[in-house]
Each structure stands twice: as structure tokens, then as C-alpha cells.
């Protein structure tokens, strides 16, 4: 597990880095073993062999193999005990590889900012980590494979005619609902789709005379009623204002918390280091609960409506803004901080005079972007009773009023696009 001396490391950390590398190596191999057993063997290889065993003409070797394992893809489960055994086996391999000090773990643990001065050393380092590179590639490939299996990627599904037809019908209905351009767009799209269907029918009958010919679309476009827009726009404005309130009241809270959540301002005493941990813990907890869950919580607390939605967005905005603000604080120039500390100024004064002037521009940009995000989120919040246009959207979708859904989506698009345009202008202006 020793990392050779020509790999540059801070000497006082060498021991702990070596141990870290060893532990990472064990975990990497345990992961590789688990993936190999659970995904490649259990989810891919075994069902494949089973396929031969239960085929119309069963293969003898497959049947005997499957029976010897008593495997049945419908009932068998990968037990926790098997997990444990595989994990331990992998860990043992990892310990073996880790002991050489050449694997992926020690490599990751040895990464540092230190420079190699001697050209011979850099060649030796390259050779030393050759195994680590191969291990890294193996890790990446197995992870992609796992992802492929777990997301149930099925390319063939994308070309099935029934699915394509339903998709096209829905597109037509949504297009019909677009304000002003809905009807002409509908006509154009319908003729394009019908053209494609006619083509595919012709080809189908040429190659396979028994192929079913697809029916053409014969839908009618009934544009959204003008009176419908009044209600929709007022709901939309509700969403915009809700987003504004959430952003506006989140900013001062986040502004204060950000100072306690920045590493470089919280190093000097135990209390401030504790405050850093507490703030980080708080923002990570509140950020990992999605605003839609917060909206449910608040609508249970104070009742369904825009106020619950605004509170939900505010909680989420505070934690996101604290994260962005405090990272801006961590990036400031230390010089003015040092200079003001040297005058005997208090920590609050140092933060106010040396830090705030440096972060005010990034803060503005982050805040405008947050409002932009909140406007988009406000439409989603409505889905669970947070008020605004989202409630209307989920209602129409539940009733399969696709034309109205198209109208609402277009309205939301107009607002989002306007917000994007405005925030780009403002960010440009304050550069």
C-alpha cells in the first residue's frame, strides 16, 4: 500500500493518503464485484441462459445449468447474503491490489497540486499508474453498462408505429392550442404527418402485401376560447408574483447565512466553524428535498394556495442562494480582508467592508437567475396545490384537454423567455 517516494505528496500527509488510497481501492473492487455479480451475471447473463432453457427447443446444457442453480427469473432474488459474500470477495481482491500501491485508489488519493520537477520522475509516475488507468477505464465501462441495464434502454421501442402515432396525435392537439398560430400550425403539421403515413403505407404494401395500412389523421382543431385566456393569464401572473415574493424574501436571509457558510470567513474560532457545519447541513437538507415536496408540506400546514407555494419556493431559494453566495465569498481576494484585519476591525466590519463590495455583482447575477428559476418552478409548484398556473395545467391534463394544455404551455413559454431575455440584459448591464 506504499505510494513510492517519487510521487509528489506533502510528507506529513503521506501516511494518511496511503491509507485513504488503500480504502478506496478496497471499495472500488467491492463495487466492481457487486456490479459484475448483480448486473452482469444476475440481470444479463442468467436470463440469457434461461432463455435457452425455456426455449421451444430447450438446450440440454442450459436446462441442466439453470436447474443446478435452481434459478427462475420470476421468483429468484439476489439475497443480501450473496451481496455480502460478493462484497467481501471484491474487498479481498481490492486489498490484494491495494497492497501493491499501484491501483486506482492510491492514484486518486495521491492527486495533489504539487509539481513534479524531475522529468525522469514524471516518466516513472506514468509507468507506475498504468494499472490504475486500466482500472479506471474498467470502472467507467462497468458503470455505463450498469446505467444502461438500470434505465432499461430499449432503442427498438422508439421506432414502434403505435407509439409514434399516439405521439403525433398528441403533438397535433397541443399545437392546436397555441395562441394565434395554433390553427395554421395544426393544418401544416397534419398534412405533414398524413404525407408520412401515406408514404409508409405505400412502402409497406410494396414490401409486404399483408401489412396493415395506417389510418390517416382526421382530427378537428377547435382553438381555445378567448374567454379562457383571461383566467389563464391571471393564474400565470399569480405564478410570476409568487416567484417574485419567494425570491425577494429569500435574499436577505441568504445574505446573512452565506457569511456563516463560507469556509474562508469561518476559520478563526470553534463557534464559527460550528456555524459553518450547521449552515452547510441546513442548506444540504433543504436543498435535497425538492420544492414540490416542500409545497406539499406547506399546503398541508397552511392550506392549498399560492402562499404555500411561495413558502416552498422560498425555503428552496434560501438554500440555493446560500450555496451560491457563500461560494462567491470563498472566491474573493484575501488582500482587503487581511488589510482590514490588520487595522483591528471586527469580523463583522471585515465582512461588510472587505467582502461585500467584492461579491455584490455575482450576488445580483445569482439573484436574478434565481428569480428566473423560481418563475419556472412556480408553474410546477401548482401541480401539488401551490397555486398559480400549475394547478390549472394539471387539471386540464387530467381531463385530457390537450388543446388547453398546449395553450398554457405556450403562455408559460412566453413568460420564461421574457425572463431569460431580461436577466440576460441585466447581467450584461452590471458586468
Amino acid at each position, binding site marked *: 500500500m506504499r505510494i513510492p517516494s517519487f510521487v509528489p505528496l*506533502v*510528507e*506529513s*500527509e503521506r501516511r494518511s493518503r496511503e491509507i485513504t488510497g488503500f480504502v478506496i481501492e478496497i471499495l472500488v473492487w467491492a463495487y466492481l464485484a457487486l456490479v459484475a455479480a448483480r448486473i452482469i451475471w444476475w440481470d444479463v447473463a442468467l436470463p440469457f441462459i434461461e432463455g435457452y432453457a425455456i426455449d421451444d427447443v430447450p438446450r440440454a446444457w442450459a436446462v441442466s445449468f439453470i436447474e443446478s442453480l435452481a434459478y427462475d427469473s420470476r421468483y429468484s432474488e439476489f439475497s443480501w447474503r450473496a451481496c455480502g459474500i460478493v462484497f467481501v470477495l471484491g474487498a479481498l481482491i481490492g486489498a490484494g491490489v491495494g497492497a501493491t500501491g499501484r491501483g486506482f485508489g492510491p492514484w486518486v488519493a495521491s492527486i495533489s497540486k504539487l509539481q513534479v*520537477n524531475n522529468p525522469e520522475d514524471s516518466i516513472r509516475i506514468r509507468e507506475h499508474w498504468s494499472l490504475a488507468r486500466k482500472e479506471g477505464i474498467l470502472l467507467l465501462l462497468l458503470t455505463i453498462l450498469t446505467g444502461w441495464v438500470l434505465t432499461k434502454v430499449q432503442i427498438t421501442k422508439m421506432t414502434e408505429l403505435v407509439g409514434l402515432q399516439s405521439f403525433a396525435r398528441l403533438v397535433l392537439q397541443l399545437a392546436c392550442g397555441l395562441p394565434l398560430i395554433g390553427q395554421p400550425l395544426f393544418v401544416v403539421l397534419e398534412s405533414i404527418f398524413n404525407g408520412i403515413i401515406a408514404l409508409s403505407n405505400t412502402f409497406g404494401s410494396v414490401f409486404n402485401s399483408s401489412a396493415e395500412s395506417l389510418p390517416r389523421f382526421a382530427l378537428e382543431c377547435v382553438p381555445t376560447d378567448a374567454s379562457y385566456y383571461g383566467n389563464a393569464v391571471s393564474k400565470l401572473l399569480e405564478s410570476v408574483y409568487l416567484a417574485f415574493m419567494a425570491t425577494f424574501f429569500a435574499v436577505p436571509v441568504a445574505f446573512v447565512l452565506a457569511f456563516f457558510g463560507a469556509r474562508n470567513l469561518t476559520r*478563526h*474560532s470553534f463557534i464559527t466553524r460550528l456555524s459553518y457545519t450547521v449552515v452547510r447541513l441546513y442548506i444540504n437538507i433543504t436543498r435535497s428535498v425538492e420544492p414540490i415536496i416542500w409545497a406539499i408540506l406547506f399546503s398541508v400546514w397552511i392550506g392549498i394556495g399560492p402562499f404555500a407555494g411561495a413558502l416552498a419556493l422560498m425555503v428552496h431559494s434560501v438554500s440555493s442562494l446560500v450555496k451560491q453566495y457563500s461560494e462567491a465569498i470563498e472566491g474573493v481576494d484575501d*488582500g*482587503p480582508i*487581511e*488589510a*482590514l*484585519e*490588520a*487595522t*483591528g*476591525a*471586527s*469580523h*463583522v*466590519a*471585515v465582512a*461588510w*467592508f*472587505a467582502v461585500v*463590495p*467584492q461579491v*455584490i455583482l455575482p450576488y445580483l447575477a445569482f439573484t436574478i437567475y434565481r428569480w428566473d428559476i423560481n418563475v419556472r418552478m412556480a408553474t410546477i409548484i401548482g401541480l401539488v396545490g401551490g397555486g398559480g398556473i400549475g394547478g390549472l395545467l394539471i387539471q386540464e391534463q387530467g381531463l385530457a384537454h390537450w388543446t388547453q394544455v398546449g395553450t398554457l404551455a405556450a403562455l408559460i413559454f412566453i413568460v420564461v423567455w421574457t425572463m431569460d431575455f431580461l436577466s440576460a440584459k441585466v447581467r450584461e448591464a452590471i458586468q
Partner: protein
Amino acid sequence: MFNPRSHASWKFLASDSNSGLVDEASPILSINGVEKVYPNGTRALKGVSFDVPRGSFVAVIGLSGSGKSTMLRCINRIHEPTAGSILFDGQEMTTLSSKELRHARQRIGMVFQHFNLIKRRDVLTNVLSGKLGQMAELPFGGIFKRWPKEWIEEAHAALKLVGISDKALVRADGLSGGQQQRVAIARTLMQKPKLLLADEPVASLDPSTSNSVMQYLKILNEKHGVTVVCNLHFLSLVREYATHVVALRGGEKVFEGKPLDITPQWFKDIYGEQAKEVEIH
């Protein structure tokens, strides 16, 4: 070791010491066996000791990385020294509580190589920020308090002293390097310091601006009785302005004496061997 008694004239230059208890002849700053080990294991200072007599202008010389900046920052504990004692005006700095340290820092000015001004604020605010130490005990560090009128007048006077009174309302990042350093000097003037720490104050300035900035430090030293400890790179400036020289190499003191005592042999000891190594890289 310096012997301040052999330079009686400093007595007259010494600042108006307000505490009668402090012996005028004792060194204003006495550094004893100061060590500094950074968290990454670098030993920046390996037991440095020297005295700074009242009213003197001490130049600290040495190569980059020799520990000059660390030494200066250990004096007002911007960097915490690992071991050793620092006696400033009869007060042990290394054991002060954070509140006492803020009080002590009010009497120690500091200027930096990169000026360290608040770039997006005007010059006047930058100068006034030298007074923040006096507001430290107010709620919220005094950030909600307006600057008193007499402080603003004082700030204008300080700007006049460094010759840029017309720039008071200009944003600090609109000034040239030399002007910014003069603002930084005006800022420390607001502290009415007894001791001024200057960390390579002219290293990022051109030669003629360097000289004018050094002139202002000299005025502070001679007319206002501020003791100056200054990190410098150019021996010509050392010979012209300093009354004492301390040389560091690799975190150790290798020379202490008068500027004129730096013989070619000493120069080789301070810079020579290292310079050869630099050529290899």
C-alpha cells in the same frame, strides 16, 4: 542584537508614547525565537530573533520564500506564529485574546505589496477604514454607524499628507499603483500607528514611483515618529532609507546590522548560493 543605547538620537524620533511605564530606551518590538510551520508542513520560520529599536527604520531582506512576509504577518498575528515570543511595546502579542489583539492591532499599521484596497469603494472610504479598529466594540462592528465628521476631516488631512487630496471621491481601482499605495499609507495614518509593517511596499511599482512611496514612509518615520519594519528587495533602497537591516534565508536570520555593513561577502551569503540554485531550475 541592536543596542538602542548607542543610538541616542532615536529617543527624539520616538513616537509620543502615552504610557509612562514603558521604558523609552527599550525596543518597541522584540522578537524572540519565532517559528512558523504552515498546515502543509512548510517550516517558514525556524526560530528568528531580533529587536526593533524605537523610531528605527528596519529593512528585512532576503529571497522570495525566505520567510520575510511570514515574519511580518506573525508580528500582528495575521498568521499565527507556532512558537516564540513577540513583545510589542511591552506587551506579549502571542498570548493576547482576540479582543486584546484587536486593540494591539490598532497601534500597528500595515501596507502590502498589492495595496489591498477595497477596489469598488472610493478613496475616502478606504482611508476611513483605517479607523474600523476603533469601532470594533460597537454592535455589528460599527457597520451601521456613520463616520464622525472629525474622522472625515482627518482622512482628508491624511490624503493631503500623501499628496492625493484631489482623489478623495475617486473609486480606488481607478488609481495608478503608486497612488493606491499612497492611499494605503493614508489608511494606516488613520490608525496613528506606533509601528508600521510594510510588506514589500514597492515591489509592484516602477523605480521612480518606488522612490516617492519610500519617501512617504521616510516622512512617517522621521516626522511622525513611526517605527517602520519594511520588507525590501532592492539593496539600493535599503542603503538609502533603512537604519537597520535584518536578512533572512530559508526561515533563519543570517545577518543583522547596519545597511553599510552589507559587504560583498554578506551579500553572497544572503543571495549568492540561492541565486546559483535558481539558475539551475
